[in-house]
């Protein structure tokens, strides 16, 4: 294995990491910095609008994540409407969908996702070891600037639910855990996307993805 890329000489794009009170933002911030971003951790709409791109991180449960982000729901939707790059990671990716089996899907207790990529999150079959934890392979299914140079590489996953987008072409990359599931997804115009795995914990492959993201932000 080769050494980690050193940080670029100058900052290539500005990125906001959304702080909605969940999880440790340190690794994702350091990873983005290593990839050449100037990172701000923020929760206000002005900061989102001023940035070249926005990252929605997250670990934990769907209901808690969606409830914590409820006050900025419209602001996150506005990012997508403006066509600014919006990158969900792990739970942050799951929140981009419409619903999850992890929360209730109908009735008064229904937990609504952001619905920026129509679809739902479902649980792995019983009988499988859950969580799916460890390094697994990425098979690129279609072109997207985020997946440049990563086909066949390994990424680090920790999750019990996975995304099932309504549109077949929303799957950018898939991964095999006794069944194929979408491990990178994107919306129709490609500006809203997410990874089920943690790029900030996926070594060189993860840094490559973060660098691809920074390049996407720099172009817009």
């Amino acid at each position, binding site marked *: *294995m*080769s*050494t*980690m890329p050193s940080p670029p000489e100058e900052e290539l794009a500005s990125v906001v990491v959304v702080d909605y009170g969940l999880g*440790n933002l*340190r*690794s994702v911030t*350091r*990873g983005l910095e*290593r990839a050449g971003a100037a990172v701000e951790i923020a929760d206000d709409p002005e900061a989102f609008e001023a940035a070249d791109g926005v990252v929605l991180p997250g*670990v*934990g*449960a769907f209901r808690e994540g969606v409830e914590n982000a409820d006050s900025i729901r419209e602001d996150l939707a506005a990012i997508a409407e403006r066509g600014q790059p919006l990158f969900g990671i792990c739970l942050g990716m799951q929140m981009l969908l419409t619903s999850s089996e992890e929360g209730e899907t109908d009735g008064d207790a229904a937990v609504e996702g952001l619905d920026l990529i129509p679809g739902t999150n479902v649980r792995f079959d019983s009988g499988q*070891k*859950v*969580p*799916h*934890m*460890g*390094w*697994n*392979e990425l098979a690129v299914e279609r072109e997207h600037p985020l997946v440049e140079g990563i086909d066949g590489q*390994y990424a*680090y996953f*920790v*999750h019990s639910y996975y995304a099932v987008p309504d549109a077949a072409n929303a799957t950018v990359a898939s991964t*095999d*855990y006794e069944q194929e599931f979408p491990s990178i997804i994107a919306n129709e115009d490609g500006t809203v996307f997410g990874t089920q795995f943690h790029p*900030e*914990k*996926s*070594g060189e492959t*993860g*840094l490559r993805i973060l660098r691809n993201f920074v390049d996407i932000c720099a172009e817009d």
Partner: protein
Amino acid sequence: MLTKRIIPCIDVDLDEDGNPAVYTGVHFEDLKYTGDPVEMAKAYNESGADEFVFLDITASAEGRETMLDVVSRVADEVFIPLTVGGGIRTTEDIKETLRAGADKVSITTGALERPELVNEGARAFGSQCIVISVDAQRRYDEAGENYVEIDGESCWFECTKKGGREGTGVDVVEWAREVESRGAGELFVNSIDRDGTKDGYDIPLTSAVCEAVDTPVIASSGCGGPEHMHEVFTEADADAGLAASIFHFDEYSVGDVKDYLDERDVPVRQ
């Protein structure tokens, strides 16, 4: 396909000048100095380690501060998962450790003394970051609940404290089931009998735990070479193999172990 993980373990203590240093030992004793933790983490990362485990063996407030500083420095440099253990007794300890940059915490005694800590940690930070570690020791008496045959003798495994110096009467297999039901996301299985011996992992122990739970299991203690990793993956179905001294003393690189496994069709990240 999900790969088997190879995890170097780094025991961190303070040297004579109060600086962090890596030590390795036999049967949890006779520690030998082997190097600087941050440099070691970087080198392991480059040789293909899938994660790291850092154990704070200083057991002092001063050591704890130093450890958190080491964790931050490693987390800022190396972008793979990092588990930190040693002296974690409260949710505040968990929070502090995660905030310093650890992805998971490994808890041993803290969970045996107050099992609710597992529930509290899983609720507050998610199961994915709660690793419960056991220091198992073979017992040939009749006090256990789950017995296996080893060389014609009937044996159970007891959870010990203080690196094997104190028994608890708790059966490892029962404890594994209990911590899983309380929300543990992963189990880290050490063997006091095999620690530092290089005779191979305790296969009956690892198998018994893997069969009892659906949670991922990290096998630890006794690894003397790639053949032992192969054995614990194929005979006990462990999800990850942890080793310390074979890597510290450059007997094998992580890459050597992975090549050996790959040649024998065990899936690894290359």
